[in-house]
């Protein structure tokens, strides 16, 4: 595996095909990575627009802008779009761009399938979003699609189910490609324990994806047959149980939240050493911590179901197992802090987002621990406290790491530096506003404000107003982010190959932007 051949016999054909068809038929990992990233940014803006509708309605008590059914469609589709359309494709895009380079290979292992993994997504999301225009509107039963509520939806229901099937097919193919690339495409000398952490975390993420996306497919298939083919999996009259759906869904759902955060851990573990100018503290403990998180993530799912009436032993088991995850998670946080300890740190935008990640993800981890206490969760469950928890881990966690990665690697991808002043502004506006947006939701939840409700009692008015203001500012600052990215693609100061003074790793040995085929000669691994 030292060089790359083309299907064409001529030896000079190395560049991409011309015109629009380049993007439709490409098998190049960088092209496909770009497609994923652009797609994810578009979905981020669409999902963000829905969030704006939600915050607008919640600005004041009472019903003002949208009717309750539409509000519920907003919360449901916002979550589905953000999880499956924005965060997951963004990480797959990063994986496509960086994994082959980081392991010193020429491309992804299965390039044609790689193309299909991406090109299913625009179709799946068109199908999902088209449900807004159907009889009964988009699905409105929450992204957790619990029966029997979700079965009462309108004509959009089967389209949503099939859209989820398609997203699953795409994810599984993408994950297979990642695993095979990591196992089979490494340059000679790139042993497993020399791989960058981003590669390691994606390896384990891909394993989780292959293990749980089919389970989700099974769950939604049963929903479909319960509605259209007379089965009674989730209907007590026939001997089934709606709680069964929750078990299957969360057997997928909890590993899924780690699918959303493990690549983020990888990104942060790349960025912090660069700007602390020190090697990552505790590399192997990071690998083991990631693996144990992945293992534990399979045996904690019912912490989402403490209030459904599980047997006491179940409550206890899932409570303690959930708390156990705090241990490897803590290992990671301490490793990041130790990496920064006595480093000669500088605070360019990627580093700011990475540090923001460490601090605010940890806040989300702590609220998670509070939720994990089964007796306390009877108070917190289905309130805004849960909403605050998962937005700290997902927005200031997963999304912040994606922002950090974008600033960190954009100069490498485009050959241009982004505007540092703009980046700093983007970080600070986002960070202030995101806390104004989500921190008050902790108090709302503790005071008992339920989630997924378009109206609320007047005593919640003030915190909600703050939250909405924070939301609007945060939303606007992401429009600014799009502008920064656009400007960087269009031009700007030329980036060096090394880009960052403290950067180590194979990606920085290639030119900025890198050649169309990454390593046509296997690099030497020290």
């Amino acid at each position, binding site marked *: *595996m030292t060089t790359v051949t083309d299907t*064409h016999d001529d030896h000079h054909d190395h560049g991409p095909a011309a015109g629009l068809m380049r993007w439709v038929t490409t098998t190049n990992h960088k092209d496909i990575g770009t497609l994923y990233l652009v797609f994810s940014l578009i979905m981020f803006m669409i999902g963000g627009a829905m969030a704006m509708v939600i915050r607008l309605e919640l600005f004041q008590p009472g019903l003002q802008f949208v009717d309750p059914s539409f509000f519920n469609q907003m919360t449901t589709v916002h979550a589905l779009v953000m999880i499956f359309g924005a965060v997951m494709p963004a990480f797959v895009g990063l994986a496509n761009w960086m994994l082959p380079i980081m392991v010193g290979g020429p491309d992804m292992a299965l390039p044609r399938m790689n193309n299909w993994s991406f090109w299913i997504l625009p179709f799946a999301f068109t199908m999902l979003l088209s449900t807004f225009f159907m009889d009964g509107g988009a699905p409105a039963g929450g992204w957790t699609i619990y029966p029997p509520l979700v079965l009462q939806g309108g004509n959009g229901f089967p389209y949503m189910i099939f859209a989820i099937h398609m997203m699953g097919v795409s994810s599984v193919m993408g994950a297979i490609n990642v695993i095979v690339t990591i196992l089979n495409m490494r340059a000679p000398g790139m042993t497993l324990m020399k791989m960058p952490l981003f590669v390691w975390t994606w390896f384990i993420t891909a394993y989780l994806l292959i293990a749980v996306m089919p389970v989700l*497919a099974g769950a939604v298939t049963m929903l479909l047959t319960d509605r259209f083919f007379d089965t009674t999996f989730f209907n007590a009259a026939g001997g089934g149980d709606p709680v069964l759906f929750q078990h299957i869904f969360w057997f997928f759902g909890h590993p899924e939240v780690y699918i959303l955060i493990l690549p983020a851990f990888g990104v942060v573990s790349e960025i912090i050493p660069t700007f602390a100018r020190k090697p990552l503290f505790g590399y192997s403990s990071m690998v083991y911590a990631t693996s144990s998180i992945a293992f534990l993530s399979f045996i904690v799912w019912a912490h989402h179901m403490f209030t459904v009436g599980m047997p006491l032993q179940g409550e206890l088991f899932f409570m303690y197992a959930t708390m156990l995850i705090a241990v490897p998670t803590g290992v990671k946080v301490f490793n990041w802090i130790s990496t920064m300890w006595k480093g000669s740190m500088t605070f360019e935008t990627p580093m700011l987002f990475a540090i923001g990640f460490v601090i605010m993800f940890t806040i989300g981890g702590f609220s998670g621990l509070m939720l994990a206490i089964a007796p306390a969760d009877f108070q917190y469950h289905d309130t805004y406290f849960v909403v605050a928890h998962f937005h700290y881990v997902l927005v200031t966690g997963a999304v912040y790491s994606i922002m950090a990665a974008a600033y960190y690697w954009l100069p490498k991808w485009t050959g241009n530096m982004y505007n540092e002043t703009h980046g700093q502004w983007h970080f600070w506006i986002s960070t202030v506003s995101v806390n104004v947006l989500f921190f008050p939701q902790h108090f709302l939840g503790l005071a008992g404000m339920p989630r997924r409700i378009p109206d609320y009692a007047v005593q919640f008015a003030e915190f909600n107003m703050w939250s909405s203001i924070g939301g609007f500012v945060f939303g606007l600052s992401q429009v600014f982010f799009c502008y920064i990215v656009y400007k960087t693609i269009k031009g700007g100061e030329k980036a060096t190959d090394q880009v960052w003074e403290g950067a180590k790793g194979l990606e920085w040995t290639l030119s900025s932007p890198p050649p169309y085929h990454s390593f046509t000669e296997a690099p030497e691994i020290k």
Partner: protein
Amino acid sequence: MSSDNAYYIPHDAKWPIVGSVGMSLFLGGFAGQLNGSSMATNIMIVGFLVLVYMMFGWFGEVIDESESGKYKKIEAVSFRMGMVWFIFSEVMFFAAFFGALFYIRIYSVPWLAGDGSGAATNEFLWGGFEAIWPTNGPGDVGGEYQKMGAWGLPAINTLLLLTSGVTCTWAHWGLVANKRKQLIIGLAATVLLGFIFVGLQVLEYSHGYNELNLTMGSGVYGSTFYMLTGFHGFHVTVGAIMLLVMLVRSIKGHFTPENHFAFEAAAWYWHFVDVVWLGLFIFVYWL
């Protein structure tokens, strides 16, 4: 550049987008049909045909590449790994349905009958319901039905599938030992046994629907029975078609003792559906 030890990277992949269009038409049409639109059935059929066209095209291209010697050991390793992980994903797909079966039999049915904390549920909602398997639930959903016995057709089917696993391996031995006749006879027998299995399964379903009043709507027993055996039967059909293609390719002389990834992939898949069947026979038919 020395192309002899280079990793093969195809260009200009046009089949994936065809596949996406086909998949969207098929599923979109299916959804429309479920909503009661008769036009949608046609869209679904068109989508299916596009998918079939895509598979012929895509696999055809890969076979051409393989035959013209573009793949070396390293690509073959990628393919093998890809297939193994794909089968793992299939295992997890079936795990969801087996999980549902076990949950229903171990928890939800006994709870409805008053076990655990279900005493009040039973007393006030479903008085007199007892936990016996199989059941169509306390609501007697779907009406009177009879259980599908294990020792008639299902037992024969078990024998057929197990035998086909043996003939498949025997064919593989023939391939590795470069005994073409053994390969072709073994494969032909496997394909034949596979299709007989599917035929008997169809017979069994018609027996269930027409004589036992056992339908998908017969409560959780009918639901789990048809869901599990149905998806398995679909996988057997796919596997048998894969093996049929391998048979044609063997007759054409495509495989060598060193280079026969496609054959192995199909064989692994076949063994996988075999193992799933054993689980079905034990937990769906027998116990």
